[in-house]
């Protein structure tokens, strides 16, 4: 598609062919564009045509956090012409170790405004559109319809399903990444886009084709609120930008007229990229895995042949994303006689009214390392569950699950965790294993965990 011999004196593309005038692929680059994008335009496969496609594209980045910041930097740097950003949050100091588009001086500012300010500094040529609120079933279609490609940089399952469903209905390609603690995932969905219901052929999957069911909100990671390493989420955001640029520069986001798969379009094997980073084995290899995924599922709720999903329905609250993603968790509510508030525990201890007892803190050891109630013994919840399962499976003495200090069968046990859920489950597990000796030994939960301890007893406690 190169016409003429572009040179930096402003004659590049001056003899433009006329055939591409309608879609803006024939115009000449400005001197600023030519200079700015020169290093990426000379990469094989990009060229002037690819660059003009980027300049004529509109990308929506949903989420201006750990994924959205690095993704947006490269999308802006590459010269995508219109960049929309959706986020309702404000910048907090605990964001800054990974959210590289914000700054210490902008704490308290809307994330969208902070990120756009950063991006303008990188490249002031694109048009930046601010959507300073959260994406909801009510506003999703109106926003997404204004763009050519969507990048899911959000942090919760309900929004992920919503974004995917709307992208299916509006035929928008979706580049979806996610990251928590030490792992990251990346997948390109709905690309090339084809209308909902087409199943006779090999078409790209949507998010629901890959992940039919959301994870239960009360699963293991919840009480630990896992944490995240900056480079892990950063790597995923950068890779996400790479995929988006590839799609736009090669016009894969444009729906073909008859939804045919041309040979080039067939090359896309749906792939889930997984990145795992292990802090505990510093010498171990970091690892990327590329997993071959299936295509569109015939019976997919969103894109399959009998799908009843519609934009009107979504706007009116059907399906209900919040409900779908909040499968009822087992209701841990121990009877009142097995619970004590943090304040009452503290008061009784100070007054010397507590018998000799053992206090088990079930937080992960990283949390425990910042501080604990005096005398607490750390037995991380995950390890405790594992041991309980092993004892049930292989037999063995139930008391092995307890720290040695608790081997006397009449020593009462108190359990505390981070926010008060794991501790209740621990009390139940210990009783299941018979460690309450039919009620002879008291096993009590400290209500509300260390969060409550900070609120009720010690406001200086270093709670994370």
């Amino acid at each position: 598609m190169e016409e003429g011999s572009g040179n930096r004196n402003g004659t590049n593309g001056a003899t433009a062919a006329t055939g591409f005038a309608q879609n803006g692929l024939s115009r000449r680059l400005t001197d600023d564009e030519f200079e700015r994008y020169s290093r990426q335009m000379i990469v094989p496969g990009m060229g002037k045509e690819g660059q003009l496609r980027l300049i004529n594209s509109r990308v929506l980045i949903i989420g201006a956090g750990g994924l959205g910041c690095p993704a947006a930097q490269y999308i802006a740097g590459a010269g995508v012409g219109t960049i929309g950003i959706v986020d309702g949050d404000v910048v907090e100091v605990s964001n800054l170790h990974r959210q590289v588009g914000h700054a210490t001086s902008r704490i308290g500012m809307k994330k969208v405004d902070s990120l756009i300010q950063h991006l303008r500094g990188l490249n002031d040529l694109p048009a930046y559109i601010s959507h300073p609120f959260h994406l909801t079933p009510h506003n999703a279609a109106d926003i997404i319809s204004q763009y050519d490609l969507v990048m899911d940089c959000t942090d919760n399952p309900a929004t992920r399903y919503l974004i995917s469903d709307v992208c299916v209905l509006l035929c928008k390609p979706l580049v979806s990444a996610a990251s928590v603690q030490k792992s990251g995932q990346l997948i390109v969905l709905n690309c090339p886009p084809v209308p909902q219901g087409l199943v006779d052929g090999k078409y790209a999957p949507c998010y629901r084709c890959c992940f039919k069911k959301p994870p239960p909100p009360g699963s293991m990671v919840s009480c630990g609120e896992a944490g995240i390493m900056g480079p892990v989420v950063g790597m995923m955001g950068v890779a996400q930008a790479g995929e988006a640029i590839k799609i736009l520069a090669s016009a894969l986001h444009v729906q073909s007229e008859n939804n045919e798969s041309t040979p080039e379009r067939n090359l896309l094997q749906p792939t889930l990229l997984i990145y795992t980073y292990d802090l505990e084995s510093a010498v171990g290899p970091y690892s990327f895995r590329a997993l071959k995924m299936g295509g569109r599922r015939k019976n997919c709720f969103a894109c399959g042949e009998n799908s009843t999903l519609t934009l009107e329905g979504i706007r009116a609250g059907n399906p209900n994303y919040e409900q779908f993603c909040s499968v009822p968790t087992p209701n841990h509510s121990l009877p009142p006689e097995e619970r004590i508030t943090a304040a009452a525990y503290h008061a009784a201890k100070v007054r010397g009214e507590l018998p000799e007892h053992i206090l088990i803190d079930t937080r992960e050891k990283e949390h425990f390392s910042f501080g604990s109630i005096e005398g607490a013994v750390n037995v991380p919840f995950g390890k405790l569950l594992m041991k309980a399962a092993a004892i049930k499976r292989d037999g063995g003495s139930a008391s092995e699950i307890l720290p040695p200090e608790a081997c006397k069968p009449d020593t009462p046990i108190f359990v505390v965790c981070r926010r008060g859920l794991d501790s209740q489950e621990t009390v139940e597990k210990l009783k299941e294993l018979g460690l309450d000796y039919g009620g002879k030994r008291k096993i009590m939960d400290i209500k509300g965990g260390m969060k409550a301890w900070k609120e009720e007893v010690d406001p200086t406690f270093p709670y994370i």
Partner: protein
Amino acid sequence: MTPKPPKGHFNILYFASAGSYTSKNVEALPAPLPLRKLFATLEERYKDIRASVLDHSLVTINLTYVDVPEDEAAGEADEIVIQEGDEVAIIPPVSSG
């Protein structure tokens, strides 16, 4: 690289929350094992892992996605069987960012 599984075994990799649930990144399990029995085998080793992790996870064999049959009892002639030396992975969705 993951160590090669011992003779008569396959490797199973646990990603994200599957890793925290089992406190392992990888282990070797006896092969061959029909795919339909995989979840029951894991449930035996890790109580409640099915509801907490497996039911919403992807499963791959040798880096390729597979559909785990819902029915554990019926073994059809063309059913997928995990073979010695295979690499199986349990991949829960990650949703933070």
